[in-house]
């Protein structure tokens, strides 16, 4: 019962476009300031170390009707860029002092210009993560870029980010990443104990509340999960790929999990981007930059020749013990749709069954998705029987 209540609360939080946990934090910290960061990755420790609250802005799903943003953005742009802007234009992000848009794609970067023009009272910055990730100069550059954003944050907070404060924040976020890795271990090893929607809520909520609270929440969930009276069912094990930026609706994940166990995925990968602890000794800025580049996952919006994406997907499938993959892409997402071609051909070559699909965060009808996934899953159950 306690677990169900936790997941109900998390769903309410994730689907509430008024950001209730942020507003509660501001009530408790009236002088506090909030840093919004768009997908995919942002070094939240830098904001935390200055006493600011970092909040992930990842679209509104179907919770807000996009009206004003449609008048400012061209028609053939993905939903997450327009619904994130709508959240701000409709006053729901009035708590932001700074909005950071990483250089993930052309729509997001161009959208940053719209934010700058639309909100003269808000500081808006593009953060340039290296796309030449294998360059010997990339870490040094990123240290400089993180320090640049750090200076902007220091101006807002009025206090310097000391190395010790940054190390303490890194330790807090290391703990969060460790707990999330544990969530994913359970999902891989005993997916009947934790559904795809539930694991998603656990990850997504990390970007919507203070990490101290989130760590406590994860610890409690991880205590309760092994006691869950759930039994293993005869379902195929799949990896879901395509949720690195725009998020599929929860009901779409629910439809998929009715037919399959999603044993790994790239949903909200930015909050799980760093895959090992960031070292605490030495220069914390360098450790953060080095971890972004060298202790990290992969996505279609980061170019790193050391991590060919199709090979990384095959590895994810292999390590999760999956039998198949669902290769999705958000509608109008240029990098996601382009990567879909690469993934699909690599999976064909490796003989791994996969289902290719498109989604949009605002989708409300899932009969067709359900039918496609069920047909796919049934055909595989026969094949593997």
């Amino acid at each position, binding site marked *: 019962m306690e677990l169900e209540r936790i997941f109900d609360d998390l769903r309410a939080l994730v689907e509430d476009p008024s950001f209730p946990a942020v507003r509660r934090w501001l009530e408790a910290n009236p002088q506090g300031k909030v840093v919004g960061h768009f997908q995919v990755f942002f070094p939240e420790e830098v904001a935390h170390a200055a006493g600011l609250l970092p909040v992930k802005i990842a679209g509104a799903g179907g919770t807000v009707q996009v009206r004003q943003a449609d*008048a*400012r*953005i*061209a*028609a*053939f*742009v993905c939903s997450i*860029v327009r619904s994130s802007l709508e959240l701000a234009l409709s006053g729901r992000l009035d708590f932001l002092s700074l909005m950071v848009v990483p*250089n*993930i*794609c*052309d*729509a997001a*970067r*161009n*959208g*940053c*210009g*719209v934010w*700058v*023009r*639309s909100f003269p009272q808000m*500081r*808006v*910055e*593009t953060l*340039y993560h*290296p*796309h*030449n990730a294998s*360059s*010997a*100069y*990339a870490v*040094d*550059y990123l240290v*400089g*870029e993180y320090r*640049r954003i750090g*200076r*902007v944050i220091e101006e807002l907070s009025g206090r310097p980010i000391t190395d010790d404060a940054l190390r303490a924040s890194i330790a807090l976020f290391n703990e969060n990443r460790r707990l999330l890795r544990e969530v994913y271990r359970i999902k891989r090893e005993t997916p009947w104990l934790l559904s795809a929607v539930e694991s998603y809520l656990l990850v997504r909520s990390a970007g919507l509340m203070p990490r101290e609270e989130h760590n406590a929440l994860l610890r409690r969930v991880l205590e309760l999960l092994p006691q869950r009276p759930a039994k293993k069912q005869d379902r195929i094990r799949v990896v879901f790929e395509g949720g690195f930026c725009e998020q599929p609706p929860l009901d779409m994940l629910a439809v998929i999990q009715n037919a399959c166990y999603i044993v790994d995925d790239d949903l909200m990968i930015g909050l799980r981007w760093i895959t090992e602890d960031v070292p605490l000794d030495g220069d914390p800025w360098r450790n953060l930059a080095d971890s972004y580049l060298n202790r990290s996952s992969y996505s*279609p*919006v980061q*170019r790193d*020749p050391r991590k060919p994406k*199709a090979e990384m997907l095959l590895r994810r499938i292999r390590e999760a013990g999956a039998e198949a993959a669902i290769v999705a*892409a958000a*509608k*109008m997402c*240029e*990098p996601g*749709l*382009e*990567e*879909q*071609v*690469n993934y*699909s*051909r690599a999976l064909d070559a490796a003989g791994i069954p996969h289902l290719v699909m*498109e989604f949009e965060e605002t989708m409300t009808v899932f009969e067709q998705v359900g039918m496609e996934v069920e047909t796919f899953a049934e055909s595989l159950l026969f094949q593997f029987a």
Partner: protein
Amino acid sequence: MSTSAQEILGVSRREGRRLMDLWWQRMTEAAQTGHPTAYVFVMAPLSELLLTFDFVINAPEITSLQTAIRGQSQAYIQLAEDYGFSPDICGYVKADVGVQLKQGEHPYGRVPKPALVVTNNVCNTYIKWAEFWEHYYGCPVFTFDLPGWRGRESLREGTEAFRETFENDCRYVLGQLRELIELCERVTGKSFDIDRFREHLREANRMAELYHAVCDTNRHVPAPFNAPLEGVTYQGIANLYRGTPEGTRYFELALEEMRERVRLGMAAVPDERFRLVLVGTACYSHFRRFVELFSSWGGVFVHSTYMVFAGGGFLPGFRYDLRRPLESFAEQMVRATYWGWTGAMFYQQEWLDQVVRDWKVDGICFHGVKSCRTTSTGLPDVREWMRVQRNVPGLFIQSDLVDPRLWSDAQIKNRVDAFFEALAAHKAAAGR
């Protein structure tokens, strides 16, 4: 060298065609002989460096554009879609994929396979495009990472924040430049010759001056050239012949012709009535029609953002310091990325403000293309900003760069006609 008026009129078109044919001849020969070809993009082309290693340069945006000019883009796009590419992916990418799937067969010649790809992040789709070649050919891909425009405050020149950001970016770009040189040496087996590099920089300096001088001739009323029409040739030559004596000579002739047209009062659009800026690109599958919709109303495009971001990154005052060629090259790349490539697309209102004033502009056409989120995403917002903040009328239309399926003639014509009617009333009200 002076040329008579008779000879000079039309020279930029004739010479542009000759140079374009010559480029295709070199490409086709390279496809036959296996001469090393480098694939690069029109934003951040790096020609000065690649020419030092004798690469033939392929600019796939230009070859894709040309499939549309020849009315054949749809067939190539269809091939790419059959291969797996979505209808929502950039048409330039798909037209090129179609060409590659047909072993380089192109309406103008044959596209050689890449010995090296130098991609960059000025347009993120460039990276995904390059990954296709990487998978398809197994060729080396160098991703030249160029940090761009950051926001309103961070790149304000003269501030400490700007200095620190600029220096950090330059160190990164210079480091990558050295890594790229090593890769070029490995691919070609040739050693880097800094004196040859310096000569290409010298030519690029001269070309940049001439490019701006040509653009400036359009401040004259009536305008001597139409930015999407003649301008696309200027951009093509600025990219394909950047850093070469042929390119420099071309712009000397183009400048001579435009000055002659100004002297004679020759207008690009007879009975010029409306002076416009094009924000974005034209639609190349309906190129003549696109221009005609405006020129039939006496509308001439005196400038375009396209001539800025696809014109080689030549900013006003662009100049390589030949005493420190590599360092200066890196600095100019960073500046061009800030203001010429990313800033000109994401935060263009300041540039527009200046052009509206200096080029005596009546209205702005914002052309969003499905193929290009880089150029198109925020156009409706900029249009509104220019209308509200500067009282400059704007038209927003949408189609594509090269996909003819996305051109809706009646709908676009209706919007263009309505715009001109409103523009005439706006001019009359302003007493112009």
